[in-house]
């Protein structure tokens, strides 16, 4: 830009000299070109650089990238670092002065987006001290990084309520449990569990305790299909927050994770007490695109003519251990038939579906024509959820539903 301005100045001055028959602007024009030629001849940048990024990063959390750079020429230069990062990443544009033969370590931050990526080295633009010329250098380094969901961020998003515990009077899935005994009221206990007769008799708050009817592990089956990953925030972002909430609520219980998509089961993490490990296993990247609002038709009646690809259902059934409680998190936009087959064939296991509603997550602007279309789709979706509820308890959730829905679930 500046070089062009100087060249334009030189041209204008030469024209001015010719028109006014004045030699002075011609001399200035000539000197400006000498200045440019001198600067271009003297600009010979040579650098040696390497960049380091932590192997494990956390979604949306600032991470430090360290650039080690050495100026091999004797002249000062300005270094501008431009990161070539995957979509969804953000990076600080570092800019600094590097003196002749100087070696420097520069730190700058990058904000990653969930997934597993191969990140190439940054592009380094070395400018002369006048900022007239620039030469680009590429740093030859490829880093494989895992960007995991950020626990801190989830905590903040979910604003975890300590009062939600699994020790409620009803077991999961709403079935009353067996009476075990009485104890003093503790902070966080459900008020509905207060035994008023015992309280009146003893003069202090007494609550009833129940034996949990169901003692199996909890498995979270997360749909990581393309539709779930679309949008900003995507349904999968929301699903991670929900999973974090469930895991927080399941304090004493063991939990496992099953990741599946359109093509089958992708990952199984056996039930563990390390809840954070489960969150860190969800490394699926976000996808750009508009969410589909097409919902599949559900047929409950069994028919001998009904054809369903059994690939996903079979792999799901084999992945879920018996006597476990499975929470499916899916938007029910793909593989619904196979999912129903899998749920119907579960042995000694109970299931529940938490379904992020694609309409509530849609990025469509609520314009006049769109509202009617969205409403029709919403009714269609409601009908589908109603049918699903006949097979398995299904909770339809939106991006703002967190604690209240979880309270209902637990």
């Amino acid at each position, binding site marked *: *830009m*500046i070089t062009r301005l100087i060249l334009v100045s030189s041209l204008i001055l030469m024209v001015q000299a010719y028109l006014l*028959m004045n030699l002075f*602007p011609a001399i200035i024009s000539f000197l400006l*070109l000498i200045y440019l*030629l*001198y600067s*271009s*001849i003297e600009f010979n940048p040579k650098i040696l650089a390497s960049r380091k990024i932590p192997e494990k990063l956390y979604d949306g959390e600032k991470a430090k990238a360290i650039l080690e750079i050495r100026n091999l020429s004797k002249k000062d230069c300005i270094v501008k670092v431009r990161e070539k990062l995957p979509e969804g990443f953000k990076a600080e544009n570092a800019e600094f002065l590097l003196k002749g033969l100087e070696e420097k370590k520069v730190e700058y931050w990058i904000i990653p987006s969930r997934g597993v990526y191969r990140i190439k080295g940054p592009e380094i633009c070395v400018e002369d001290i006048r*900022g007239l010329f620039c030469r680009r250098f590429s740093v030859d380094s490829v880093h494989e990084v895992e960007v995991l969901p950020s626990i801190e961020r989830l905590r903040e998003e979910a604003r975890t309520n300590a009062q939600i515990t699994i020790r409620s009077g009803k077991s999961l899935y709403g079935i009353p449990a067996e009476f075990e005994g009485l104890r003093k009221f503790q902070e966080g206990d459900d008020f509905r569990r207060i035994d008023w007769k015992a309280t009146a008799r003893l003069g202090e708050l007494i609550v009833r305790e129940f034996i949990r009817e169901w003692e199996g592990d909890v498995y979270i089956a997360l749909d990581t299909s393309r539709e779930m990953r679309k949008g900003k925030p995507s349904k999968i972002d929301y699903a991670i927050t929900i999973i974090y909430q469930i895991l927080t609520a399941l304090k004493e219980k063991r939990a496992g994770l099953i990741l599946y998509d359109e093509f089958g089961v992708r990952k199984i993490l056996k039930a563990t007490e390390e809840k954070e490990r489960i969150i860190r296993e969800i490394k699926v990247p976000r996808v750009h695109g508009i969410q589909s609002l097409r919902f599949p038709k559900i047929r409950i009646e069994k028919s001998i003519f009904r054809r369903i690809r059994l690939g996903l259902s079979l792999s799901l059934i084999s992945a879920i251990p018996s006597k476990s409680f499975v929470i499916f998190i899916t938007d029910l936009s793909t593989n619904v038939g196979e999912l129903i087959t899998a749920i119907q064939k579960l042995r000694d296991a109970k299931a529940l579906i938490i379904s992020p509603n694609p309409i509530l997550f849609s990025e469509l602007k609520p314009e006049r024509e769109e509202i009617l279309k969205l409403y029709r789709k919403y009714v269609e979706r409601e009908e589908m959820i109603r049918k699903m509820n006949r097979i398995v308890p299904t909770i339809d959730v939106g991006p703002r539903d967190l604690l209240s829905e979880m309270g209902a679930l637990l």
Partner: protein
Amino acid sequence: MISSVSSVIIAVALGLKAPLLAPVVFLLRFIKREVAAFSFLIYCVLLGYEFSISELDELGTAAAALAISTVLLLEESMSRRKLELDQCIIAFVMPICLLEFDLIVPLLILAVLILIWKDRAKAGILAALFGIAAIYSIMNFKGTEEIVLLASLCIFLFLSFRIVARRKGIY
């Protein structure tokens, strides 16, 4: 800084108005360097309207001082080097030229030499020497011929600059 002080001195000594804008151009670099470069273009045009020489033989102290201080102004406006002691000393000494105007050219040449020394210039010096030699060689010609010759030299310099930039892969 040196260019601004010298331009003000030239303006006072010769009764010109345009050189008084030099400090403004210099200060504009602190807002944005592109703005400074654009204001420099306007400054040069205004200078060309106000100050004129019809032949190179007339190239006296005033014209030489004004030409050198203009290039120095561009350098100081663009360079990101910090202000150093030697520059401050020259700028401090410069007002002496109000008493003895002929001293201004040696002082400005000294400032240019210090700049080239700081640059650790090597091959670039040849470009500067070529410029001086070219101007002296044109002095034998008269009027329009000088402008045409300078224009052809400018085209030559522009092409040389493009070749150097392309070969080095700079832009």
